[in-house]
């Protein structure tokens, strides 16, 4: 019997683009055409929380940014929701579009992380599900 092919399953649909060509994936966000505020993830409702108007449009975010802050988590989070490796790192990334957002960090060595570190978007494995499929998510990775 042949081994079933493992699939890659996004943690949540609609968070990033999956281009067929050699283009890199980009995060999908909402931008208010009136005030310029940006929201990630993309808003379900066409409603700007800053200026209270139905003036949102979909945009793709920059793939590169800088860390604002980070923490390396040394213990399993409570509740059993997170099934990735421990320790792991997450924190805030500033993108040049003008948004600060939470993200996991993908690093070979946690010492590669620093404040105002240049980082770039990657989509890779968070954990394997019960069928052996890879659940993937967006992360930012320190640039060499």
């Amino acid at each position, binding site marked *: 019997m042949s081994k079933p092919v493992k699939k890659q399953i996004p943690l949540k649909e609609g968070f990033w683009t999956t281009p067929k060509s050699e283009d890199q994936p980009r995060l999908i966000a909402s931008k208010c055409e009136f005030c*310029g*505020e940006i929201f990630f993830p993309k808003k379900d409702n066409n409603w700007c929380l800053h200026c209270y108007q139905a003036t949102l449009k979909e945009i793709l975010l920059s793939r590169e940014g800088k860390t*604002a802050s980070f*923490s390396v988590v040394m213990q399993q*989070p409570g509740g059993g929701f997170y099934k990735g490796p421990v320790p792991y790192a997450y924190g805030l990334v500033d993108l040049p579009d003008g948004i600060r957002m939470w993200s996991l960090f993908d690093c070979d060595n946690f010492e590669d992380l620093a404040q105002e570190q240049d980082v770039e978007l990657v989509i890779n494995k968070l954990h394997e599900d019960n069928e052996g499929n890879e659940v993937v998510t967006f992360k930012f990775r320190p640039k060499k």
Partner: protein
Amino acid sequence: MKNKNQMREVVVAGVALTKFDIYPDREIHQIGSEAIFGVLKDAEMAFPEIEAAFCGSVYQGTGSGHQALREVGLTGIPIVNVENACSSGASAFRLAYQMIGGGIYDVVLVLGMEMLPKGPIPSTAFRPWELASGFNVQMANYANQTQAYMAATGATVEDFSLITVKNRNNGILNPNARFRKSVTVEEVMNSRMVATPLRLFHCCPLADGAGAMILCAKDKVKSKSRAITVAASTLTSAVYGEGMMGDGSLKFPPEKGIVELSAHQAYEESGYGPEDMDVVQAYDTMAPSELWEMEKLGFCAKGESRKLLRDGYFDLTGKVPLNTDGGLMSRGHPLGATGIAQIAEIVTQLRGEAGKRQVENAKIGMTHVMGAGPNSSVTVLKK
């Protein structure tokens, strides 16, 4: 909302706390009812005098307040369970205060209680994808905020380790505290790393516990000499642009954040300011948060609290004694009971009944608690 000067004067007629501890062999209704029996005695009142009850808890399930009251009395009164994360107790207190101030009831019971399993809180105040990403680690969320605060102010790990040392020393003098042992700066800084740069002893311990209060209109109080007036009670939620934990808008940061707003409203409502406070309870869920909360509450400029701390300003004998009962750091943090315990400590101090941790001549005090949501609640009390 009625202007403060249109409201009746509301007083705290009684307070009671269980010891905050780990009770593997007790159930939530047992510690809840223990606090209610305690507060009836403290206020010299009988259960039938209670006209309504507001009960704060977070993870205790449906009708947990009803379960606790069922052990004490069944008089048909309205019982409302309040879940507002770590501000649940303070939120229940505020509802009671408003009901009496607005003339709806004369005597109201407030209860706050929690029992939790060992380990980090399984917080669900996040979206499912955030939970799956592991973003629900409060210590790591605070760690991010701490890193940003350190970069902005020059505060060091040693600075906020001294918060733990101070609060543990105060806890020794509080018979209700979970931890009653001092720690050294070295012990704090060598404790297990939880989420960089925060270590185990920078994080408040959980605990099981309950607190109860009876609030009443001034003319209903039995012991006038022990009654403490509620001068203000505020509750605020997120303001646009601040974010939950430093993840605010880069384009549109708010003029006042959630904490500043709750404090500002409390100062307006009470007519007092930070300079009038003789004793303070601030939210030390993580040691560094006590530093920045005092700044946001207006006690000093951003980045200055660490110097005040090192100068002894926040000690029991200092200018503004802070977390005199040991704070969350020593007392422990039974989520729904914490807001009540903070207010109870100020009431105890203003009554002059705080024993070895008594602040001399304390006449006005305040509390500040936060919670997921986010929530921020400030209470001002006066003798």
